């Protein structure tokens, strides 16, 4: 009998094109997602060397980072000249190199990590790359998915392969059921708070346990999305009937006999009993609570019932200085209860939390309530199809009646490359993935939360425990 293997080991082995004597591997890439920010220099490189795109049928392009989200604005001219040039450059490149593209006017346009799964491009056992660190999202399908730089984007366009070394295996096991009020976002914030922002460096994290199996595909994508915030190369969840149910019938999913053949292959992917991980972390699901971040690293995550830490309590010098600096940047004080922190902006959206389930969770809290005075609350669906479905369900009306702005799809305030951003000193409760200094605009202050917690912040005007809402 052969050695028990992990899900990662199996995908890796099945994509090895060849291995050099020193252990450097050439691995095959099944799916390549392309967006406007990290691809222009890659296409320019192809042009300069006279190379083409090896497999346009395995590639899909979309513009998402720079797209305005004010309703209808996408149909006009993008005002920021650099943003406009970047989008126009993508459109010129996809035409020249024959890459499939969802234009801005297409209902299928949206954030690259939302539309890949939505279109059935992301499938179990595949390798998926994109010039974007949140490519880890696609690991929710049991796909080995990771972000790459622009030089590697060019490498994949030209050769459909990447030069890599195998990662190490890490298991994060969440046994038991999540307590009421806790979501996938709270779960991943708790994990990052536990293992730290470099806790997964050099590893692929496989999430296991009942709390993970119980998640919908949307929730699994939220968990895998933020694997990169724990430093991991990728996140993985074993494919199961929930995965197959999500995929069946999607435009790029296999059909008919091919579907049955594919499912048979996919069912062999989960890690074998007895497979060995280089690192194992176990967290009982009962320990998870609604989480928020207080600082400027995703690892600065605490239950909403906690308080801002006191640097004086921290022994490690580097860590104490980092906490001190974060508290200053965030305009907080040591020991301040997290629920006493007033916010002026709420952002619900992004590749972390811009899917239909996230909009439903926000609407459920918003229904019958009002956004607090002085709070600007944006809801930005992750794709045109998410927007359409939310409108069919009447979620947009609930949100607008409660005082939220209902926007067009895009990356928006997650990273402030379009017009949606925080002004210096403004403070948000945000469902995005990074609370780095200046991430949502220079001088802006970000608290990461789940969609339901973001809506609770919107209606109370502060970081609030949604379990305590009247």
């Amino acid at each position, binding site marked *: 009998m052969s050695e028990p293997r992990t899900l990662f080991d199996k995908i890796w082995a099945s994509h090895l094109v060849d291995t050099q004597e020193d252990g450097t591997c050439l691995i095959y890439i099944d799916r390549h997602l392309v967006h406007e920010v990290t691809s222009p220099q890659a296409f320019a490189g192809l042009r300069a060397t006279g190379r083409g795109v090896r497999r346009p049928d395995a590639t899909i392009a979309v513009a998402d980072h720079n797209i305005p989200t004010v309703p209808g604005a996408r149909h006009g001219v993008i005002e920021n000249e650099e943003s406009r040039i970047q989008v126009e450059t993508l459109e010129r490149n996809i035409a020249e190199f024959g890459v499939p593209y969802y234009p801005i006017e297409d209902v299928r346009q949206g954030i690259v990590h939302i539309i890949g799964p939505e279109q059935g491009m992301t499938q179990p056992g595949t390798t998926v790359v994109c010039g974007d660190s949140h490519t880890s999202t696609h690991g929710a399908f049991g796909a080995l998915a990771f972000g790459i*730089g622009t*030089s590697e984007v060019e490498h994949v366009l030209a050769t459909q392969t990447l030069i890599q070394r195998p990662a190490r295996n890490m298991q994060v096991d969440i046994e038991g059921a999540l307590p009421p009020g806790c979501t996938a976002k709270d779960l991943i914030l708790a994990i990052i708070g536990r293992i730290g922002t470099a806790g997964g460096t050099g590893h692929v994290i496989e999430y296991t346990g009942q709390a993970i199996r119980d998640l919908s595909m949307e929730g699994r994508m939220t968990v895998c999305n933020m694997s*990169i915030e724990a430093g991991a190369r990728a996140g993985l969840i074993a494919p199961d009937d929930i995965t197959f149910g999500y995929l069946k019938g999607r435009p790029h999913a296999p059909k008919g006999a*091919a579907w049955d053949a594919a499912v048979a292959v996919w069912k062999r992917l989960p890690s074998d009993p007895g497979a060995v991980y280089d690192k194992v972390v176990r967290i009982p699901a009962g320990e998870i609570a609604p989480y928020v971040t207080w600082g400027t690293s995703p690892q600065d995550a605490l239950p909403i019932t906690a308080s801002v830490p006191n640097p004086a309590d921290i022994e490690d010098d580097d860590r104490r200085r980092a906490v001190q600096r974060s508290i200053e940047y965030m305009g907080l004080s040591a020991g301040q209860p997290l629920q006493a922190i007033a916010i002026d902006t709420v952002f619900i959206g992004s590749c972390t939390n811009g899917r239909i389930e996230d909009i439903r969770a926000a609407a459920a809290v918003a229904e019958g309530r009002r956004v607090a005075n002085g709070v600007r609350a944006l809801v930005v669906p992750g794709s045109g199809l998410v927007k359409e479905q939310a409108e069919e369900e009447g979620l947009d009306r609930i949100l607008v009646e409660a005082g939220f702005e209902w926007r067009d799809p895009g990356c928006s305030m997650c*990273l402030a*490359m379009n017009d949606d951003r925080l002004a210096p000193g403004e403070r948000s409760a945000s469902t995005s993935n990074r609370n780095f200094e200046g991430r949502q605009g220079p001088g802006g202050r970000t608290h990461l939360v789940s969609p339901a917690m973001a809506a609770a912040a919107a209606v109370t005007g502060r970081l609030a425990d949604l379990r305590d809402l009247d």
Partner: protein
Amino acid sequence: MRKFETVTSVGAPLPEINIDTDKIIPARFLRTIERKGLGRHLFNDMRYDSEGNENPDFVLNRPAWRSVGILVVGDNFGCGSSREHAPWALADYGVRAILGTDFADIFYNNSFKNGLLPIKLPAADRDKLMEDAERGENARITVDLENQIITRPDGEEITFEIDPFRKHCLLNGLDDIGMTMERVASIDSFEAADRIARPWLYAE
């Protein structure tokens, strides 16, 4: 790609942990279709105030460190986004080597594609080099890739580890894509077999 042989320079100390790629180059400067010219926005929001004036306290604005080729950095440098604009900005500014303990994977990978050498050292060695860097002027550090040796200003030598393939590429300024193109027969045969095993992943 530019070859890397040796670099001798004063080191700039950046002891903060978790310096992320948004700090190295904020997202609003990614709206470019060029690789060049990003050096002026390197560490933008630490280096300049909101009016664009130099922040006199930031290390790269202080006289001893205005034109360094080496950075000595805190743990987990380069975490966050996959933006290659981070190593582009560093290389465009003139940085050639980054001495730290560990680096985020994507940033580490991207650096080698741009003639930039990130070196992972034990914390004790990094701390000695951080002290050297803090001395500023005349405390010159030499990084010799061929022999895998860092020489401190007092002449002490510190050896470092590096993946032999990455070393080979950096020393010779090799283009990855060119090398992979030479293995196209292997890619062709992989694809031919895969087309039979997983036909649903290929267009008709």
